[in-house]
């Protein structure tokens, strides 16, 4: 009689052989997805969520009040972080002779891109927006420590890579403006004045702006006696609007009602039309009166 169950012996041999070969393991793992919980958890780590603040900022003097600091994520540091996280319960070193060392390497290699691909979904899920494409390449970002963070709820950021900023577009209209996908943008803790932002790609210009919903009609001078508005001059001929080259200062004190606080829109429109010598409609009224939000641009130095 031979060993009864050849299958058993060959099972063990196969198991060892498969474990020994990272290629075979990768084939075995194939396109297998990670369990959703695990994927989310690893994605969170990819975005430094849960990393103690004193590790992100070894010395607080690096980030004094009212400062912003730009950085690029070190992929090795993040890989190490994930490796540590995945080592829970594993009190093993990884001597090469161990059959499962390649298995761990293979699963880690398998899990990392899947976790990274999951990163945009965290924000998408939280905000209920469509998920951005999975990040590829560098992840960069900044830490902002400012009263702006606490005082300006809804603060926003537009992040542009080098070569595709609005200025580049202004210089050469054939250049498209590219905005980098934001992976993480949040205050670190409740009522915290520190904000972290991570974007997919290498940030070159960061425009911090007030919440976009704050677009409004506004005046340029609000001196009590002489409020005024700088309006664009334009002409309309055959339905074509042509902007003039300059601003015209229009005193608007007369447009206010008796209490001096509430503007009479019809009067205001009349004033504008009178100044420009045209009758304006609602669109032209909006064009003249709307004020944008406050924006601060930071551009990476060389």
């Amino acid at each position, binding site marked *: *009689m031979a060993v009864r169950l050849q299958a058993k012996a060959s*099972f063990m041999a196969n198991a060892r052989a498969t474990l020994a070969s990272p290629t075979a393991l990768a084939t075995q793992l194939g396109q297998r997805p990670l369990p959703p919980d695990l994927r989310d958890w690893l994605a969170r780590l990819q975005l430094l969520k*849960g990393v*103690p*603040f004193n*590790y992100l900022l070894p010395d607080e003097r690096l980030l004094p009040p009212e400062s912003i600091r730009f950085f690029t994520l070190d992929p090795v540091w993040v890989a190490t972080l994930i490796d540590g996280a995945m080592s829970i319960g594993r*009190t*093993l*070193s990884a001597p090469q002779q161990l059959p499962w060392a390649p298995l761990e390497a293979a699963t880690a290699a398998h899990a990392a891109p899947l976790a990274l691909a999951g990163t945009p979904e965290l924000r998408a899920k939280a905000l209920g927006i469509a998920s951005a494409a999975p990040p590829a390449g560098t992840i960069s970002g900044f830490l902002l420590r400012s009263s702006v963070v606490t005082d300006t709820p809804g603060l926003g950021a537009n992040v542009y890579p080098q070569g595709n900023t609005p200025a580049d577009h202004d210089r050469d209209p054939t250049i498209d403006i590219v905005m980098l996908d934001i992976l993480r943008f949040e205050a670190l803790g409740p009522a915290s004045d*520190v904000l972290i932002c991570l974007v997919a790609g290498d940030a070159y210009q960061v425009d911090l702006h007030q919440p976009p919903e704050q677009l409004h009609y506004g005046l340029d001078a609000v001196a009590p006696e002489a409020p005024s508005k700088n309006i664009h001059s334009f002409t309309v001929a055959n339905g074509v609007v042509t902007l003039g080259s300059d601003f015209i200062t229009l005193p608007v004190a007369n447009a206010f009602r008796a209490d001096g606080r509430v503007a009479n829109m019809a009067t205001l429109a009349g004033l504008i039309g009178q100044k420009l010598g045209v009758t304006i409609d609602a669109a032209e009224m909006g064009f003249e009166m709307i004020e944008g939000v406050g924006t601060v641009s930071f551009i990476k130095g060389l």
Partner: protein
Amino acid sequence: MTQAILPLNVRALRVNQNDAQLLTGQFKGRVAQFEHMPFSSTEQRASTGEQIVQPLESTAPALESLPPGIHLHWELPDAYKRGVQGPEGGDPVFPAAPNFWLVIRYLQIFDATAGAYGPVSEQAFIVESDYISAAAQLEPDPWGVTRPAISVPLPANPPPHTAPYRFMGRVCDYGSWTGPAAGAQYLSDFAPNYLTSIGFVGPSFSAYYPECKSVFGFWDHFKDQREIYNAIVGNTPIQFRASYQVIGWVGDASKDLFAGFGAAVTQAYDDYVAKAQARQASIAITPASQLDQMAQQQWRLAFNPQDIAFTLNADQTIATLDAPDQGLCAGIAQELVWDMLNAPGTRYFLGADTANPPSAVWTDDEIRVAVGNSAIEGLSALIKGEVAVPNATPAQLSDVETLLDALQLGLLHDLEASGSSLITLDETLHSRGFARQFGGYVWSIVKSGQSTIDDSAEVDLPLPLAELLFLLNQAQKSYDQGRAELDTLRRQLFMDWLRYVAPYVAQKQPSPTVTTNLLTTFLDNGSESELGYVTARGAAIGTIDYQLDAQSGTITGLQAPPAGEDGSLATALYAAWQAVSAALPTGGGWTLQATPETPFWAPTDPVLVIQGDRIEPVRRNGDAPCTPVRLREELLDTLQLSAGGAQFTLGAGAIAGPPTITAATPCQATVQALAAEGALLIPMLASSVASAVAALGGAGNPAATDAASFATALNVAQGGASPLDPALPTGQPTSLYDQLQATGASPILNPAQSVTAPIALTLTFTNAAGKGWTPYGTAITAQSLLPEFSATRADPFLPVFLVWEATLDPLSQSSGGYTPDTLTRYFALDEDDVDYVYAAGTSFTTGTPVTYRGSVVLSRLTTRSLTAQIDQYEKLYPKDPANPTLDQARAFYSQANIMSQGIDGFSQQMLLQSSLAQVTVQDLPKGGQDAVTTAIAAAALADPNDNWYQYAFNNSAPIPFDQRAQDNFGPLRAGFSDVRNLEIVDAFGQRLTLQTSATLPSGAQEVIPAFPLTPVAGGASGQGALYLPPRLIPPSRVWFKWLSASFDPSVPGITDDFVETNSHPATSPICGIVLPNHLDMSLMFYQASGEAIGSFGVEHGTLKYRTRPGNEDNAGDDLATDIGRMDGPPTVNDHLHNVMWHIAQQSAGFLADLMAAIQGSEGFLNPANYAQSVDLAVLMGQPLVIARAVLGVETSGGLLPVSQADTSSSPDFSNDVNAGRYRYPDRQAAGAAGLAALQIPLQLGNLANIDDGMIGYFIDGQGQSGPYGPFYAPAAKAGGANGVVPPDPTTLAVTLNAAPTPVTFLLDPRAPIHATSGILPVQQAAIPPDDYAAAFQALQISFVTRPVLAPASGLTLPLPSEPGYVWSWVQTGQKDQTPLAAKAGTDAARFGFTPQQLLEGWTQLQKAPPPSAAPTPTPPPTPSNG
């Protein structure tokens, strides 16, 4: 009160004058022939068991042959064949079998001129089964015929020179019978005897007509019918037909199966109700279903609960219950046609088809035989070819066989599940090749009222109590082994006496080298003789009786031993039990309970699974798991007919024919009802039924119109006509008989049969209450043709015995027997396997095959498990892709005639012993002149509490002389075996030889070996034969028990760690805990209580001990400070101390190798109970424990079999006698074929089994300076030079009955450790979860943590919260621990942490102190947001 009617299978064999003259003399006859016992003073033969037995394998002609006439044999219902045996062995107790049988015969002679049968005549007989003849001679029956009767060994202890036998059973004419005759003797007059299914013969007694012809059989010689009798005897033409109804009862109602049954049911039901009410549970069963349930459990009888009448009291207890208090057996053999009208001079009923002159011996020469260790293996081997794909390769066939094995064991579906299912399959199959034998008792302390020990009943006893319990168990084991030893000693004494008494009576010398005088002295010479020794041992061991719990039947205590047994093991056991009882915690709640200890295992004999056309499995009592029985109220007594719109109702009592049952018959009315029912069912009586129906009158009465057609229509509805009679109208619905005979058929309630020809009728068989049930199909039999025998064969062939002949080319021995290295020299045990194989090309046998013969009662257990398993499997997994293949297997199997049987006695004969009829030790011819016999006979009965006969000490005979003794005394069974002649003997003694279509050149049959018996491919020897892997024939067990981790010497008798004999140890065996940390290559040691000690690691290439984190008292990392100096005294557990000092003295390479071995083991470890405390396990990694166990192999009684040979080449017996070696242990030294020195390797752990927790072990006492030598780990690298080595086969080799070897294990306690010996079933030992779980929970785990950034405001770390545990930080070089808050250290931006520090140290997890004890460490204040 009512009666239960059990179905009785009655079969008839016709023997005509030709058969009687030529054929029945060739049949096998009686085995037991008590009348052959020599008793006269002139006899030259001794009055021993061998004189009265003519084994079936003997070629001598039968003592008496079947005379002409009809021979009836009825098979006792299985309920009467179930003996109850105590777990300790002893003789099983069988219920009293019915001893009175009413045989009613209906007879019709065929009138050849009229072409029809004449009127029916009736005659009733009484068979008094247990009638004992007044003298030792046969008596004529009322018709003047001297019937053959069986002989019985009565009176039991006859004086010398008087006949030691009588004849049993007689036939009376029922008409003149007035009950048991006054003045006549019956078996029960010879107390304690009473009639059972085994009689004085054994299980074959009631099943084999020649053995019980006058007891459970009836020979109808027709002397009361002159015409028939003359025709039969004169061999002149006649045709007639007969039907028989047989009704049996137990004469003494108090001994009936059902006596007291109603009371027992009432008691059980009322108890159940009381319990349910106490628990406020609803009452889910009725008294009727309780009755049915108990009948199923006790006798495998099934009632119809809806027909059992009962009433309840207001409190739900039983007021009345109409339970049966008596059982009646009833069956019919109908329409037996005797067709001797033509060629009476040459016509045979029973002749085999081939021979001229006719032969009685049939042959099936196209059988297929497969052989396995068990019927499962054999069946798989037999049918694998039918299931596999066409032209399957050997590998594919082997896979199919494996799957079939798994299917039959119910393991098929799990085979693909995760876990070690293939190994489980291997181990299960392997263990099926062994039979368990009682291994003694083991005591445990359980909560009162708990009948079984389960996990929840885990008791952690105070150490002194646990030690007392150990002492009790030790005493119990000594006593149990002592009793087993006595069995062996007494049997040997008996066998030696046999060697003495025969030559003594014959006035010869026992052997060429032994004189009678010498043997006399050897046997009986005061204390200096075998009898003296055996008697002394009996006194030293004593006897004890157990106290049983009345309800559960568990053993809860001991009875005081009889007076005068002072100093015996029994007395010591009783004292030990008293000590534990006295020490049990006061206040009650705890009780002692004994359960069976690990059993001993004896190898089963190989099982033949045979397939052939003429082989019909024996299922005379049907294949229902429980036999359906009827109550008297369920008998059929009414025939309702509907013909052409007219309805008639006939009471069965109105049918003429059945005899009047007299008042002499117990249960008169019921027997009368049975006879009346017979009139409804027996086709021959149809014309009587027609007359009774006609007498009903009324319009459209079909019987009045045409009685003959009515009778034929009734016959069509009844069915079961003889094929030898003219055919009935065809194209009719299935007859009642055919419905009842269909496979799996059950009794039918109020069956209605519609017939269309010759007249249209609907007949309903029912009773007045409308609950008439037919009997179970086995209770009605009729003639049927057996075309696979011959075209004209109409008599049954009912296999009962297998007579076998096999050879064994046995394992070689040297002059002293087996060499100690026999197992390792010839065989190898693959680490993935459980059984030994030999290397191809090795020669390990003697080359001299020995022939063994025997006969065995065919198992009534059919191999139908296969179809049942397939059905079950497909029901559970309807979409399994294997199902079509399984269907194929079922289809093949269900139409094949397959029978399986172990060849009993094969192994026993290798011990040079054979079974012997149990006859009292006596010397009838020599009487009082024979002092030796007188002394032994007296000794056997000397102690009324310890009657030797109760343990069957006289059931074996030695095989001293023949070829078997010459060529093999083989207690270690191994070698190559061949199957030679096979023959089946049927219930009437008919014979059928079996032959495979091809034979091997050696003349052996061509058998299909099951996988484990297949010879190694390519080997030079054994091809075509069966390979029998090595097996210890004496019952043995692997003794693998944990040792307590500590002991309390204040208890007298305890001087060392003691064996935990329970599977649930009373104290923990865990000596310490080890936590490997592979990250920094260290082993952290903990005490069993969970307190940390310190760790070993490798620093700068050397082994370095470091004390536990935060231990300021041991700044120098000194091992002695932590655990005590190497030479003691230890401050931790002794063995933990030893292991740690052992490691401390090793090199860095040792630790590296050890760590590698741990890693190598744990990767493939996935314990079944991994899920327990999983959260903590995730944090800990894999804690291991150090625990100790003992390992050994022991035989039942601690003795080895000794050779009985007395041949010139092996004169063991003569040597013993001449050397005066009357003590068994002395004989063992020379006569046990070297078995005592045989090295039995034990393979511990199993890397391939993910449910095995062993990392490795030290064998205690192997060290030069310390207790330990190398650490043996299966996962260690080969040739390890640093003291960590893989074990080889001889690493742990034990000898039989040697003191067990203590072993110190390093193991993962979540999985058991397997001990594989190959020659015995795999034994495993596991640490109960409670023990390690408690230790793990208390574990103080330190996680090396480095480096971490510590904010200036205080250390925070992102730690999970573990309920019940607290975290703290232990800083290198600091004594105090800093509590750490869980879930601190988040990514929330809080400032004020600068400057930060880099720290190295340990995070520690420990059990939170209970709220009342120390204050919970408060987490540091949360740093404020800077």
